[in-house]
């Protein structure tokens, strides 16, 4: 069995989770089984994974595993159905729609409980319980599938003091405590786990418990397991200390060096430092691009095996769609899909567009992506005003309907500080957009073939960017030719091509058995 290791599946996903989702569709398509091993507890995990099309059978969350709730029938209950332990005729329920809660008071007015529900389906989310003195005793959280999953104890308003996780039948299997450390700070001081055979284990941190868990999973299904780390740090050490053999792989989801121009001497990205310091102890590494593979190999010759497997996959459905000619797209539309963060360097694009606008007045710049902080977004808005491009350059809401957005654009642009792959670039290119990008690593320079499906310009050269924009928009034939080439170029990232690379890894992994 092949296992992929990550925190979980949050609503706001990073590149790692997007890559995982693409990969999962690929495996499903070829009927190859896989498992996702998750570390973090999350009451809404299953509703999110199901939205992503992941069946519960593929998911092994550590808490679900010990709680005995890996596969559960959906039996979500509504607020009125929660048994609060008192005769309903002694209680008064008042709904607070804004906060999505019900306040439950006793007949004498004393607050008894608060029941929070989920907006989508009004199923119970949490229940706060108050004693007869009006003190908050605990908060119970309910899994999206309907059972009480964890209780958080509250004491004297200092916040959570400890938690206990339940099986659906109500037996406590995991508990953790928060205590004062030597510096008088409150810290999570440890986990206590009772396994199904009744034995009690203690762990100082969640990663400790996760390491033991990974080892246990491997023991149960060894030999023949392939363990892939998607999220660095949380399982690095665990894979080097397994009781039984497994094919261990570290997946580099980002640039491993801070300065790709000096790959042999640059400071390492601290997230991968441990893995690379133990490079020869893992059975292999995965990089998303040929360039990264080349650089890693050169610096770490002791690595046993390096796989190059792109994390972006162009779905077959897209290849079957008719290609949209440039004439049917919005003339001058430059669209950028990227998180609003410093390393993306949106400012450069804004300036380049402002310059190009002098020659191509129809030019527009449309930026999609969510901002983690409004500070940077405000700075960029100010810049747009300063260059008088308010009518030309716009921020749009984060969207999930990329097809519609990309099908009406003509050009995309990448000016990041560094990348691990840049899924957005592949997505744009496969929709027929012509790319103009800095010569940064890793990804854009491979996805876009210079002079064929786009242009690669020197980093920081804003004028060059502007010049390429103008060139493209002034030459309809050139624009169309490059668009056609982009569609062709995307075939390198078809499901079939990517799958062949996974097949090789799967084959190597089984040889180890």
């Amino acid at each position, binding site marked *: 069995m092949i296992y992929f290791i990550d925190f979980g599946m949050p609503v706001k996903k990073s590149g790692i989770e997007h890559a995982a989702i693409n990969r999962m569709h690929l495996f499903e398509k070829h009927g190859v089984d896989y498992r996702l091993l998750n570390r973090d507890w999350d009451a809404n995990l299953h509703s999110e994974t199901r939205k992503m099309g992941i069946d519960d059978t593929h998911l092994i969350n550590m808490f679900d595993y010990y709680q005995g709730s890996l596969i559960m029938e959906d039996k979500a209950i509504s607020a009125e159905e929660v048994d609060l332990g008192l005769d309903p005729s002694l209680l008064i329920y008042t709904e607070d729609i804004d906060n999505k809660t019900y306040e439950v008071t006793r007949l004498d007015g004393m607050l008894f409980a608060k029941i929070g529900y989920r907006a989508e389906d009004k199923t119970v989310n949490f229940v706060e319980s108050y004693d007869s003195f009006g003190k908050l005793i605990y908060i119970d959280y309910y899994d999206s599938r309907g059972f009480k999953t964890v209780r958080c*104890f509250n*004491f004297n308003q200092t916040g959570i003091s400890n938690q206990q996780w339940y099986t659906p039948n109500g037996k406590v299997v995991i508990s953790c405590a928060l205590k004062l450390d030597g510096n008088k700070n409150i810290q999570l001081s*440890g986990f206590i786990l009772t396994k199904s055979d009744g034995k009690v284990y*203690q762990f100082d941190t969640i990663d400790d418990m996760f390491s033991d868990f990974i080892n246990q999973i491997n023991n149960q299904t060894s030999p023949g397991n392939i363990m892939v780390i998607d999220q660095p740090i949380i399982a690095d050490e665990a894979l080097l200390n397994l009781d039984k053999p497994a094919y261990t792989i570290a997946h580099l989801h980002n640039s491993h060096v801070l300065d790709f121009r000096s790959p042999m001497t640059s400071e390492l990205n601290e997230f991968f430092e441990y893995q690379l310091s133990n490079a020869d102890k893992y059975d292999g590494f995965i990089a998303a691009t040929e360039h990264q593979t080349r650089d890693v190999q050169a610096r770490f010759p002791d690595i046993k095996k390096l796989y190059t497997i792109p994390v972006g996959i162009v779905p077959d459905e897209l290849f079957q769609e008719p290609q949209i000619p440039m004439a049917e797209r919005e003339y001058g539309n430059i669209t950028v899909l990227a998180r609003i963060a410093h390393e993306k360097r949106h400012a450069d694009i804004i300036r380049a567009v402002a310059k190009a606008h002098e020659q191509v007045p129809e030019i527009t710049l449309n930026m999609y992506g969510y901002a983690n902080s409004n500070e940077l977004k405000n700075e960029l808005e100010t810049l747009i005003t300063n260059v008088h491009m308010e009518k030309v350059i716009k921020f749009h809401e984060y969207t999930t309907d990329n097809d519609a957005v990309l099908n009406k654009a003509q050009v995309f642009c990448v000016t990041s500080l560094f990348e691990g792959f840049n899924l957005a670039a592949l997505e744009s290119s496969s929709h027929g957009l012509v790319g103009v990008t800095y010569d940064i690593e890793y990804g854009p320079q491979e996805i876009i073939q210079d002079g064929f499906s786009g242009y690669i310009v020197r980093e920081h050269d804003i004028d060059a960017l502007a010049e390429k924009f103008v060139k493209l928009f002034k030459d309809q034939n050139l624009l169309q030719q490059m668009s056609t080439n982009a569609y062709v170029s995307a075939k390198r990232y078809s499901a079939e091509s990517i799958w062949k690379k996974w097949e090789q890894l799967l084959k190597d992994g089984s040889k180890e058995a």
Partner: protein
Amino acid sequence: MIYSVGENLFDRNSGIEFAQIQRTQALNSAHIQAKIVTRKYNRRLSLITEENNISDVQINMFDFFQKATNLQANHQTTRDLKSLARERYNLKYNEKFFEINKSGRTYAQIYAMGGTEKYVDKVVYLDRFNNKTLTHYYDWRGFLSMTENYDNANNLISQNYLDVDGNTVLEVFYTNVYGTIEPTMWKLINYKGFDYLFDYEEQLFLFFLNELNREEPSVFIADCPEVVVSIMSIDNPLKTIGYVHQNHRNYAGNVISEYTKIIQPEFGQLDLIAVATQKQANDLASIAKSPVVVLPTTTFATINKTSEITTLRKVVYVGRLTRHKNVDELIDLFEYIHKRDANVKFVIKGYFESKEYEEAFNQRLAKCKLTEVVEHLQYSPDNSELFEDASVFVSTSMSEGFGMNALESMAHGIPVACYGVPYIKDNLVKDGVNGIVTIKHTPQELGRKILSTFKKPQTVAQLQQGALATAEEFSAEQLVKNFDKLLDLGYASMAEKRVDLSFVVPVYNVVKYLEATLDSIFNQKTKYDYEVICVDDGSTDGSAEILKQYAEKYSNLKFISQKNCGVGAARNLGLSHVEGEYVAFIDSDDLLADNYVETVMYNFKRTYADIVTYAARKIKEDGTNFTDQVDIFGAPNKIYASGIEQFNTMNIYRYYMVAVWKYVTKTAHLREYKITFPNTQLSEDDYFSFFNYQLAKRTVSIKDVLYNYRIHDKSLIRTFTQADKSTDKRVEHYKAFELLLKQITVEKIKITPSITRYLMNDFLTKLIFKDELNTNIEHTTMVMVGKYLSKEIVTELQAMLREQYKVYVRKATVLN
């Protein structure tokens, strides 16, 4: 059942606990069921009950909820702790406990239970900062009984009490109340399907006592003041008795405040107050709120006189060695006698109140040079060896309520020597009859009188006879007779025996299924009484003959027959004969679960509801289960403040509850509102159920599957029970509908959206879409509806009909 209720049992019990034990043992040996009930959580309790031979006749509140009553011991030793992962951790023993270590750090500590051979008491788990984060407490019998959690500052915040499988059954929560950590919330988890919350432990205790009483109405004896309040609040116990074990007045003659809880409770009243002697009873009668009776506590089987010693050889004392019992003066007494007769042996048996007192006592003995002469034996329940060759039992106590040990001595034919103290003087030890009593309360006077009595062997022999005779008076048989009298009183005042539940079964030509149905009704596993009223509606296929057979076999079957009038009339006729407190309407081809009566009755008693609705399972015509579809229809456990509230959930959850066999109703409720079946052939159950719920106060739904209803092959047209009238089905629905609307206006029932939907789904669709859409019928019906309901409702119904018609047409075209 007679329950002797106290707080706890101890390694070193006092007179109260011994009294409870003796009383319980005597009653049981006389075949009157009796048990000792204790309230406090005590993990060593089983050790104590075993030592005292009362394991089978003792119930503790926590054991009850933890399902550990009568649990066989499977001891857990510290060395072999099952929860220890030995492949990961190693054990290291230090003076006080075992350490669970890994890489030189202690992760947990295992403590042993005092007084045992290394049985586990608790395991304390430590975090990396060496804080206590979790404690596992073990019961003496070897299972993990309770776990404790702590907050950031290591204060206790919660306790989980577990059953033997590790499931939490009770949670207790602690908060900081004005500076101290106190329990503020008790929660029973999943007790018979429900959670219960209590603000005080007394409430939990009362709940527990009520559960005991529900199994069988019983006598409850409060042996200490702390349990009186809860006992007085039990629902319909057989009898409540408060026992005053000691002198209720102090030296100054004032009533000891603790006992006012029994003698003059602030709220409520006990049925009786009991004391050990008539004298105490007389004194109490004038100040007690309840009648006072005499119930001597001490009792035991009379033993044949084993020694004929009439000389002063061995002087004995049995009892707790406390200052309070004036034990110091015993030393003076021994000194006096020893000086005059060096051959006399002295034996005292019992435990000292404290190590400190034991030392003081021994020092005193040494000072009087009596260390070699006085033997001290440790307490044990069996005193026969001690009394075998004793001459006299001595006591220098000034306040003993009733000399239990003195009585045991007399049962061995050994006279008692003591001071003349109230209650002892008159009732037990009588000077010259069965013992030696001095008016002057000094050890010297007592010693003098003992020595002089034993100079006369004949007197001694007389005293010995007298002692045995006194013991007879207080024998087990006597005690039991007293209790019997009490029980008789109880029975007389009890309500007349009534039937708990009545079944009404209308029968018409169901010879194929009738026997199976009747068998399922008579095979109930229950302690409740039920009657089965079968109404034969003019059957012609032999069903009536079957009923006659069953009537001969079962005395609780009432067989009524009528000429064929229809199922509604049959049910009404049955209802008019109902004597039970609750009534269930059963169809003659369906099957009951064997816990039907038990479960339904339990829930009525628990909630005082008007209607209990349960889940039902559909079965195939041949009685087998459906395997390819959902076959159980029911709702979650819930108590509703009113029937209307439950009725409103019917449309939200579509939990079918209109069928009359889906629930059981309180007879008084039906009679109060005169709810009966209309005389139509169809929809008579829709009518009945509608009013039943609309007019009910509290109702409860339970998810237990108690009923199996048979689905008949669709090709068979379900014939009406009125065989000789072949009428169009719709006419019958129409009749029922009109009667319903009429009654709604009479009862002035407000039409809610829930009701509109009900009218739509349960009546209109049957009328208008049953076989084909018939616009004539639609028109007639809506005109009729308009007679009783407002124009707005009529418009609403018409709109709903149109919507439904679209669906119908779509379905119809799809089917085509």
